[in-house]
């Protein structure tokens, strides 16, 4: 193996590590944050659609019920997230991987 090959291999490893580090430290947390925020907004949306799931009568749930067939996944995930969420702080804290 000559020198140029060894340099080439070294550079490849460095590039991979750099990309991994950048992804783990910067991009992934950022995207995760956005996705969590998206989920939060979606939760608010579904809560606004179906407050009667919590015993709050809503004059519009008759209309929002029409959305249920299209909200299958969201509805299930929503319920799961609501059970899962101890406090708002905990939810917001999940993005920091200590």
């Amino acid at each position, binding site marked *: 193996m000559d020198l140029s090959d060894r340099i080439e291999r070294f550079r490849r490893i460095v590039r991979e590590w750099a990309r991994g580090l950048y992804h783990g430290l910067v991009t992934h947390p950022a995207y995760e944050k956005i*996705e969590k*925020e998206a989920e939060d*907004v*979606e939760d608010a949306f579904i809560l606004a659609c179906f407050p009667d*799931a919590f015993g709050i009568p809503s004059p519009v*749930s008759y209309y929002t019920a*029409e959305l249920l*067939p299209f909200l299958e996944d969201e509805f299930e995930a929503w319920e799961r997230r609501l059970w899962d969420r101890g406090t708002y702080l905990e939810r917001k804290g999940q993005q920091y991987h200590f």
Partner: protein
Amino acid sequence: MEPFVFFGGKGGVGKTTVSCAYGVKSARSGLDTLVVSTDPAHSVSDVFEQSFGDDPQPVDGVDGLSAMEIDPDTEVQRHLNGIRQSLSDQVSAAMVNEITQQLEMAHQTPGAYESALFDRFVDVMRESDPYDRVVFDTSPTGSTLRLLGLPEFLEGWIDRLMHKREKSIDLFEKAAIGNNEPRRVMDGDPVLNRLRERKEFFEFAGGALRSDAAFFFVLNPDQLSVNETRRAIGEMADNDLAVRGLVANKLTPEPDDDEDGRGARYLRDRVNTETERLAEVRETLDPPLVAEIESRTAEVKGSLLDDVADELDVETAAEAPTFVG
């Protein structure tokens, strides 16, 4: 006058009688007329002595007049079944139970009846093509006002929902890194589409009520009825809807001057009270009194309906709808 005419008022003042009489009057003047009862306690059938259902049916003996009665129970059930149908088309069997529970809850909320009635009467307005005039015999004041106030309220609501949905989809799209498929996409999102359809429906309803409908209140010449009418006019104004006129029903007939029996004295006293009330209506309420209908000794039906129709000083000529169509 506008093609859609609504008669409202306190319970028991004779809205059904007046709407039916107006229906007869319109039909007699050559208009194809439909009388629609949106009161869950239907009595159009009793007035015409004929049973009506959810679809318009011609009224026997009056050419050009049809009638229908909207049953909120049936409407709620129909709505529920419609959603159930699309549920079984779209949703995996495991989730159906979960969602069905939510669905049934939504159809037992206090607003369900009102929403169902509202949907149906907007449909009637939308499909009013074969008729020149549609007369709505509404349920007593409170719920009718809420019905008429719905479109604006709901439009705002739908707007906020759409905004939330758009925001979450937007974030999901942004969260999709590189070649990853975003969890939701804005294009052709079925939820947004459904919301948009609903919004158009409410916009249509609001527009039709504001530009193609005339409202009349029926009242009796007593203090309770006058007070309620005053409040109702105020609430209509809050919803940007103007009341076109008032109909005084069940006025006591005056006895002849030479009579002085107990009955005659009773009638005279009663007439005095009523004259005061009517004066109050004329002076303090804005919409003009368009008809004064004397109380009858028999129930108003058959040929009596024509007499009542004659006393109604409400024009019948119908303009073509400007908004609907």
